């Protein structure tokens, strides 16, 4: 017994070390598939893209293209108007959906539909609704007033507005859901105490709801900005960037340049927009990696 123990003693330490090595080995092996995916399908494409955009002449051509300037303005409008509209409505609606009524619970289930279904069929449905000749909206206008309705998607301002509305329609349920979860995390006693003190509805929002939700609201807004920069479908499938390429956003511009066989311009446009995007990305990374 003792002999056995003694014999085992010298090897105990190396065995523990070997055991730890096994764990590190398996750790590395298990993280390897993702690292491989990252290197092959993220790092390489990003570097390759930057390399394609290396010539200063690409940037000269890009800045000479009036469509690029228009696209930058459209993207800014999209982000500033659509996101703020969406987040404010979502904040308001989150207050609506926490009310306890049977019909509000039913409505909540229906309200998720835009988020639950794929975007393509519904975007195409709206596109047909807006068709100037046969679309539902203009048919209705004609039946009611006897006058032809406007050619909705042929006007750059209207077309971009509808793209923004389409985006809001699609993603409003998601953000409302997030903000509802945020509201439900606020202890109910705070509101009861405020009611006892005779606080108005606005005061309750101002002094209880908003301070508790501010951080979540800010995070959601920034995350939504990043995602909206990548929203290709709402613009491309509704307006196709038209009329006359006046409703492109950065997400669709790359595809336009790819079609024109000007990949360097597509990459240059992305490089130019990096100063706008990277701060948002690093802000989110700091928030989420805690």
């Amino acid at each position: 017994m003792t002999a056995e123990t003694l014999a085992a003693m010298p090897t105990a330490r190396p065995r523990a070390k070997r055991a730890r090595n096994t764990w590190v080995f398996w750790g590395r092996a298990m993280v390897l598939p993702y690292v491989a995916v990252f290197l092959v399908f993220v790092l390489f494409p990003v570097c390759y893209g930057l390399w394609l955009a290396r010539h200063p002449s690409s940037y000269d051509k890009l800045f000479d293209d009036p469509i690029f300037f228009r696209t930058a303005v459209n993207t800014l409008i999209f982000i500033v108007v659509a996101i703020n509209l969406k987040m404010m409505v979502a904040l308001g609606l989150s207050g609506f959906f926490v009310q306890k009524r049977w019909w509000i619970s039913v409505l909540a289930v229906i309200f998720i539909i835009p988020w639950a279904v794929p975007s393509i069929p519904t975007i195409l449905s709206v596109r047909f609704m807006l068709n100037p000749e046969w679309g539902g909206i203009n048919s209705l206008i004609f039946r009611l007033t006897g006058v032809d309705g406007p050619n909705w998607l042929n006007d750059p301002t209207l077309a971009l507005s509808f793209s923004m509305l389409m985006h809001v329609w699609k993603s409003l349920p998601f953000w409302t859901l997030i903000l509802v979860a945020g509201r439900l995390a606020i202890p109910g006693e705070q509101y009861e105490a405020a009611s006892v003190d005779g606080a108005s509805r606005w005061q309750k929002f101002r002094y209880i709801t908003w301070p508790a939700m501010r951080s979540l609201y800010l995070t959601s807004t920034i995350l939504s900005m990043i995602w909206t920069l990548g929203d290709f479908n709402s613009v491309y499938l509704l307006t196709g960037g038209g009329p006359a390429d006046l409703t492109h956003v950065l997400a669709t511009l790359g595809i336009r340049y790819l079609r024109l066989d000007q990949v360097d311009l597509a990459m240059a446009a992305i490089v130019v927009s990096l100063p706008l995007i990277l701060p948002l990305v690093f802000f989110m990374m700091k928030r989420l990696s805690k």
Partner: protein
Amino acid sequence: MSAAAQRLPPKRRLSWRQVSTEAQLLLVGIPLLLWTMIPVYHLFLFAISPKDTATSGKLWPDHPTLQNFSIVFHEHHFYLNHFWLQMWNSLLIAVAVAVLTLFIATFAAFAISRLKLPGGRTVMNLALFTYFIPAAFLAVPMYKTMSVYGLLNSQWSLILAMVTIASPYCIWVLKQASDKLPWELDEAARIDGASPLQLFRLVYLPLMVPSLVAVGTYALLLAWNEYLYAFLLLSKDTDITLAVALCNFLSADDSPWELLMATGFIYALPPAAIYYAFKRYMVSGLTAGAVKS
């Protein structure tokens, strides 16, 4: 009878304040219902309308019909020649993406969170960085890269691209969930002499089932719904997914809208059903992270 009569009055006597609250709620609820349902109802209306009356602008067709669905199912139109094949492609690609993403993300989250792999934090940050690159910005370089790799027009290119896009978020959600598991479990397993693989299979996986369902559903729906990458990376009519096939209807001015809407309706049903079936997991699993911050 008399008891009922006695019970009624207090119910009837709603104060003005209550009435106005209910009215205000309805004033939000009704427009919200219309706003949500109009595009969906329009889609449905077209799908059940006969060809000649589809554009009449009526709120309900005079002769609702399932003819459009029959045409779609029998592939009786030029645009629908490969309907079933494209449906199969969509399904195959979505399932492949979900399975591969689950493998990659679960292994990575386990290694980072439970094995405390040195450098795990760096890997997590790389994943988060990828998650925050807008997908449309990565599309053009991804397209060029796939052509360098010689994968263009192969369904593998779409599967791998979607795995790349889906896995960072999945790793993050799974890591958040893993961090909450009690550390004592791992210690007990280690003392009992469990190998890393045994710990993974016998302790970790069973406890992670709800998060795995959430993440798997997320990846599945992401791939099924994807349009941009599918349309860039695939081109043959027999390779493309249903999403791309739907948008190919737009290539002609006289495309049959009622068939497009019927196809779109069929295409939208499976993900909607899956979403509602797993809503419990989706909502708790996917919002937990966002609410935390």
